């Protein structure tokens, strides 16, 4: 598995031909309960649903592309629910990295992350969203994190521009 595209909106498969495209509207996944029992049993989640395989894919791939609506300066709710399930990819124990405590990811692979945020977001919300991407691990360690914002009606055009980014 090389690349993974996760989207909360229907997109054409032509844009990212070298990736697996996961449309959150077409999969079934439960909401994380936050009990952290997955950390106690070596990354095995209580829920056996579509997220089991998607978590594995996110572990194995090198480039992740998230296409999400930006709401309240954050990922939209279905997307945030998906991200919360990725806690399963963390180690329970804490490690100091650059003087800060954190849970390391189980995957040693450093990934590239591209986030395309769409919807009506104010400048403050866009900045907030970028802060989330900079400060949060979102389940993995990344070698580069990039964000791009556009209006919902511009999304297809933007995806056409970014299409092929997964080819290498």
């Amino acid at each position: 598995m090389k690349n993974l595209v996760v989207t909360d909106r229907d997109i054409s498969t032509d844009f990212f031909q070298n990736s697996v495209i996961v449309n959150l509207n077409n999969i079934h996944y439960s909401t994380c309960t936050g009990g952290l029992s997955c950390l106690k049993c070596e990354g095995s989640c209580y829920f056996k649903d579509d997220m089991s395989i998607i978590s594995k894919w996110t572990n194995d791939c090198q480039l992740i592309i998230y296409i999400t609506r930006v709401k309240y300066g954050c990922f939209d709710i279905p997307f945030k629910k998906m991200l919360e399930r990725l806690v399963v990819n963390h180690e329970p124990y804490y490690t100091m990295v650059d003087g800060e405590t954190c849970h390391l990811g189980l995957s040693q692979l450093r990934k590239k992350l591209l986030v395309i945020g769409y919807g009506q977001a104010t400048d403050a919300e866009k900045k907030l969203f970028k802060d989330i991407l900079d400060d949060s691990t979102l389940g993995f360690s990344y070698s580069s994190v990039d964000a791009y914002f556009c209006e919902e009606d511009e999304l297809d055009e933007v995806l056409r521009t970014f299409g092929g980014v997964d080819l290498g």
Partner: protein
Amino acid sequence: MAKILLLNSGLKHTQTFMKPFLSRLEVYLDDRCDCLDVRHVSTFDERTFFQYDQVIFLFFIALDSIPSSTLEIFERLESQPKGSTEIYALIACDEYEPEKCDISEKILQNWCQREQLHYKGSLKIGSALFIMKTISRFVVSNEMKRLSDAIIHHQDFYSKTTMLTDRIFMKKANQYWNKEVKKMNKLKRKRQKR
């Protein structure tokens, strides 16, 4: 005297982690206001939200940011006629640095601004999984008393607290996880025997 709502808005099982903080805050506020109501995500009613003078959001962060359950509450409140409720937050994270709660606070603050509510501040707590089992619980209790005073007097309040040093944190935290992992393994073995 005011009507106050303590809203435990985190993910389902993180509400257990928040319980020590919630119950203390409940005690500190109980006889100092007209009405003190405690709600969870499952018992929360958006129609009554703006009837309270003050609402305190309590949640444990999820993947370094605000939990989806709290975002759902924001969404449910969108269609409600707005009041002039004051908003406070008690945000907790499992890491040593309470600064990990900053993003969640900013999102909450941004929502308050958008909905024209008065954001009055927060108490951010680091090492939240086990801080109440260590000597630092006295510091936390003190901060929570200060928060409850600020709520009662309608004052702004911004503070954070965590364990004494990161070395103590690392020791205690890894001990905690060792114990939890062992407990889980034991439970698994028991289940397999059955």
